[in-house]
């Protein structure tokens, strides 16, 4: 009951902020789209006419979309926390009886609708401008995308926690944000890459969108692996976050930026 109130409030706030900063949203969208076009032109110059052109392009589109997903959820935790701390609201959020993690988790869920919307728009724009149409089987895709987002959220909590403790780590946050590209495009046949957060799930998404596989046709071991990694990184993230939070409360640095 109480949680529902919190969720509603977070949805409402996200919506208000989207409307208030709509031009930022549009600007973000335009930037992402232009970057994609540049990637696409580069790719076409290299690969046009080869056998792999269609699959490669599909992978490029999917990889780009997944990167946007991953980056947004990651930023929604780490950068948001930075802003909340800088704007001094962090301590007030900590004084919610729901606890900061739940407050943040609900904001993420509220923001997810927005993220899906953004990713969908970009995907449409990409498919329209490249003429490469991909399999949009939502029944297969939604669970897989969630399996991608959950471990990345765990990663976000790890860096968010470190940030509470060691304030000036923005440059590391940025580096990790670009490393996410690697995480979502890494091939799984290297073996160790399946242990990266979200890499297995990204692979499965490609199987669905590019190879047009239905979710039940995916190897269950891979699915299980994606699930295990999701749970593992989420729990790791929350544990590290709690630890950092505790340390920050001892050193009195929770709200200091």
């Amino acid at each position, binding site marked *: 009951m*109480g949680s529902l109130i919190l969720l509603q409030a977070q949805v409402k706030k996200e919506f208000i902020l989207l409307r208030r900063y709509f031009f930022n949203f549009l600007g973000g969208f335009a930037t992402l789209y232009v970057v994609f076009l540049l990637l696409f032109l580069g790719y076409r110059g290299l690969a046009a006419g080869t056998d792999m052109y269609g699959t490669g392009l599909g992978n490029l589109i999917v990889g780009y979309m997944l990167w946007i997903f991953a980056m947004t959820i990651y930023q929604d935790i780490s950068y948001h926390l930075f802003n909340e701390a800088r704007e*001094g609201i962090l301590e007030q959020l900590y004084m919610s009886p729901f606890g900061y993690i739940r407050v943040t988790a609900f904001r993420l869920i509220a923001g997810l609708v927005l993220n899906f919307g953004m990713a969908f728009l970009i995907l449409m724009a990409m498919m329209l401008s490249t003429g490469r149409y991909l399999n949009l089987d939502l029944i297969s895709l939604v669970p897989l995308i969630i399996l991608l987002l959950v471990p990345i959220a765990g990663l976000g909590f790890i860096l968010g926690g470190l940030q509470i403790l060691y304030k000036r780590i923005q440059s590391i946050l940025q580096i990790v944000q670009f490393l996410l590209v690697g995480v979502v495009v890494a091939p799984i046949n290297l073996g160790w890459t399946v242990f990266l957060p979200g890499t297995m799930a990204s692979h499965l998404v490609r199987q669905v969108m590019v190879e047009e596989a239905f979710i039940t046709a995916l190897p269950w071991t891979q699915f299980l692996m994606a699930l295990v990694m999701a749970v593992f990184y989420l729990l790791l993230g929350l544990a590290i976050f709690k630890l950092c939070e505790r340390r920050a409360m001892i*050193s009195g640095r929770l709200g200091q930026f």
Partner: protein
Amino acid sequence: MGIIIQARNISKTYPKKKERVRALQEVSFQVKKGELVGLLGPNGAGKTTMVKIIAGLVAPDQGEVEIAGYNTWKERGRTLRKLSAVLEGNRNIYWPLTVKENLNFFASLKGQPPRKVQQRIDYLISKLNLEKKVNVTARSLSRGMQQKLALAVALVVDVPVLILDEPTLGLDVESALEIREMLQDVVYQENKTVLLTTHDMRLVRAICPRVIIINQGQIVTDDRVENLLRLFEAKSYRLKLTGHLTSKQEEMISLVENAIIHNDRHNGVYIDLHLESMDSLYIILDILRENNSPIESIERQEIDLEQVFLEIVGRRRKNGQPDSFASTG
């Protein structure tokens, strides 16, 4: 008796690279339901640390705080349902949200659906004169307005305990007055309990019947303001002289503890004395007798809370010099 805030034996040392900062040492106090208590102390005394420990934002090294019987550390969620806090500075609200949106959002954050608190929101907005700013983002409000909004946000749901860290710091007289009145209403009409830190002695004088004074992390006084004033009034004298003092006399008097010589062009020479014991009065009289300096009058001094405060925190210092502290009064 209805004790609602119970702090037992709180100590806090901040870990720092070079030295360790002892912010609080074995601090204990109780606040009864419906009390309005001022927590005073010079800069760095440990007030904010105490506030944050009560709000569960800083972990004490030892000791515990209970709010309405719930332990702030072990029963965090329950305690947080019993209290709201406005922390130091102007950052207790969401800057990109409007006044109304902030109130709605924070009600939910405390677990109340906005529609249930609409009446309360309207009341707070009109009481704090925020009507014209309802749809203005917090970012564009003046400092005073932001502080009023922060207070409104803390009061939007009905919690029994309100903690405020320097609520009137940097505000103009009018805003400070509105906040002061709001706090009085909250205590006397809604029977809430308020603990506030401040350097503003006028605020304390106007609304806090009781003060706790801390200095260097320790409670030095916990008493009703009227008692403190009475106590210090009885011990404050002003000796007015008709003639002048010799430099030798001046030198000797300046050695007497708590005696201050004033050489005023209009009022002539007078000596202010805060008496620890009657001894210093007799010593001064002896010094004056040497030259047969005529005494015009000896009066008991009117004393204000600010002087009492300086006396109390000054007395704890080894060299007897009061610590400088920022007064916003």
